[in-house]
């Protein structure tokens, strides 16, 4: 199959450009195969990131024809424009994941001593217990590809306040795990001031169980009025996003 690939080359301190390659490849190839081919045969300096090859490590996320996806799982098309996610850049298609994690780390509390974790379970009624488990399982199927983070209109990597949808997810994960701490006043204020509940972040999540959909849904029904009110302001509802994917 003949394909035309325009791929982004650049670093934060240089003006980026697109380089075009025309090549003939097996039609079964994935986008990651194309990147390998460019590195091997055309451009030894091409930077791209991947590890697992099976949609598990989340490292190969990038924009292909403006749609964020995992390069290891995305089938090729006759014409493709490949560029990095809209997050701080390192080089070419590689974004600065460490910077995003460090940002989120700021809002995570130190782990407490939870040796008496099972005691807290004892007091819980059957329904709550079941719901907490189901929610926890679904929320922790995220593999940190950062697609959501790159799609959020309210996330700024230089704004220390809002840790983006991935940070929001981390907080919700803790909130649902009965052995962890629930959302604090501070978290709730921060979310109320930042997230508009537009659901853009959840739209392209490649995780099978769509953890972020649940996180947003849970927040929309959170008893804290401020958060709920603010999130309902968002243009798209999560429900609609759910149906569009």
């Amino acid at each position, binding site marked *: 199959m003949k394909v035309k690939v325009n791929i982004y080359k650049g*670093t934060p301190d240089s003006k980026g450009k697109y380089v075009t390659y025309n090549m003939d490849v*097996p039609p*079964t*190839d*994935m986008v990651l*195969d194309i990147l*390998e081919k460019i*590195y*091997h045969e055309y451009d*030894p*300096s*091409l*930077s*791209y*990131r*991947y*590890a*697992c*090859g*099976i*949609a*598990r*490590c989340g*490292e190969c996320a990038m924009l292909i024809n403006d749609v964020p996806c995992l390069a*290891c*799982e995305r089938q090729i098309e006759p014409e493709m424009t490949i560029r990095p996610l809209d997050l701080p850049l*390192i*080089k*070419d298609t590689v974004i*600065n*994941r*460490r910077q995003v*994690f460090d940002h*989120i*780390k700021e809002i*995570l509390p*130190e*782990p407490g001593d*939870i040796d008496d*974790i*099972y005691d807290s*379970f*004892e007091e*819980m009624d059957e329904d709550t*217990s*079941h719901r*907490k*488990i189901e929610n926890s*399982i679904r929320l*922790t*199927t*995220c*593999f*940190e590809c950062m697609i959501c983070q790159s799609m959020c209109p309210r996330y700024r990597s230089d704004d220390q306040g809002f840790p983006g949808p991935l940070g929001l997810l981390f907080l919700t*994960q*803790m909130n649902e*795990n*009965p*052995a962890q701490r629930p959302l604090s006043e501070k978290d709730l204020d921060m979310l109320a001031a930042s997230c508009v509940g537009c659901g853009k972040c959840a739209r392209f999540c490649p995780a*099978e169980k769509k953890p972020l959909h649940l996180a947003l849904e849970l927040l929309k029904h959170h008893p804290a009025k401020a958060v709920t009110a603010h999130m309902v302001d968002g243009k798209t509802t999560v429900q609609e996003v759910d149906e569009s994917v």
Partner: protein
Amino acid sequence: MKIPYEKLTFDIVVLGGGAAGSLAAIRAKKLGANVAFVTKESALVGGATIMAGGGTSLTQSPGDNGDVFFKDIMKSGQQINDKGLVHMVADNCMKAFYDLENCDLLLDRDNLKHQGSASMHTVKQGEGHAYPRAYLDRREALGFCHGLAKTIERLQIPRFTETIAVKILKDKDGKLCGLICYSVIEGKYLIIECKALVMATGGLGALYEETTNSTVLSGTGFALAFDAGTELKDMEMVQFMPLCFPYPKIRRGKIIGMCSLLGPSVKLYNGLGERYMHKYDPERKEFTTRDIGARGNYTEIKEGRGNPDGTITVDNRGFDPAILNRWKTANPFRYRQCVQTYGKKAGNWEEPFEAIPAQHFFMGGIKINTKMETGIPGLFAVGECTAGVHGANRLSGVAFAEIFSLGPIAGQSAFDYFKDAEAPKFDDKAAEAAVKAVEKPLERHVANGCRPYEIKQMIQHVVSMNLGPVRVGPEIESAIKELENIRDNIIPKMYVSDGDPRYSRERLDALEVPLMVETALMVAKSAAMRTESRGSHYRTDYPDKDPAWLRNVVISRGKDGGMELRTEAVAGEVQA
């Protein structure tokens, strides 16, 4: 030298970001050490751990206990396992498993109230297990990774991601004193001084062309450990998975699974349209153990009886819809990738599909004792990079039982050593010289040289062709010759053409290649030495198990730096 370096100091460094390394780092940090965490990938918890199905074998059924589990692991390992280590895993796996809930993690259960098998998601008997043992998680291994990752972040353990270790440093007295790493993201070297180092560098799948492992698992840790002077054991013992994807390229070798996962209706056919598994296991046929299953598929393909594209055919048309459903929920990604690769019908088992066997797990590695000590003061190792727990073949779900049980012990041992150890005599000059030595080949300009990725592919080709699930003396010998040729004649011609050190894949490849060839040589030499067939090591020139070979092959570093091989009686007394 153009490439900059930075000097850092920590009490303890953990090398490798799978579950084994994560648990070691968490334990050492909680005990109060200043710990740093170095991993080759960017994922918070990575390695084979994040790729795994998450099945964990535990002694959770009524009647089951550590002694029964011990016997099963020993039997599967064909009695060359380290008995002391096997006992530690078999006896402690339950406690270690529940301890995970102290790491930001909720286990997959039906009910919060009862801890234990009653509320866990478990499956029936796995092959080789006397009792139902497998804990299954609807997140596969992602749940474990999530918990460990968050704990490490919350403990504020500094993490050097996308950083590859290239040399382990010892002081004049032979004690560990640090390591040299290369940060791929920053394009610079890190000289790290530390009192203790825990190696948790995982397996060596990426030495093979077809592997279920991720690309970062190229076996560099074994060569680093050898260079530092540790002994390595059972390096011939490589496990293969019977059913893996043959295409697309990037997915080649990635895991589908074993026949038992697909249900009792599954049948395997070769390119001639014949069923063949009865030739390899007349009784169990398709439902044989991993080693025999992989060997059967490999032999049919290698002897020219495969499909034209070098695959075998999996036909599961008589499937039970309940099993398809279980497959979809338990392995959502594998299902999704089957549908993408083979189409909707074959992905849903209504049509046959093609598969190949691929490298999956490595039983050999760094020789350790029951404190995870390697023999070099200050150097510890744990997880898939060590030998002993699995012997000649690994039983399903025991890799996770191993890393959960032993990971924290490695952290504990490193801490105990560090708190009483005198500061090693770190020699800055020697460290700088070591950086220069590593960097020198990368600054070379050679006419008609070889690109690093080309040499990587050469190594993978030699290893795959000659050190697969079916081996024979002359092929093993030729692998040794070819690998030595690569080491002596081709690597000296390697050059890096990428002038920009920032996130340079070429520099990463160039740093891995010399280590990969050393590890491959250790596998080949050990395979040549073991003149029998046992577990995963199968030789057509010695097809039978030989009782005289109830021994381990051990490699040590000779005075001239070369590999010295010997055999050793099986380690470890049974603990009372």
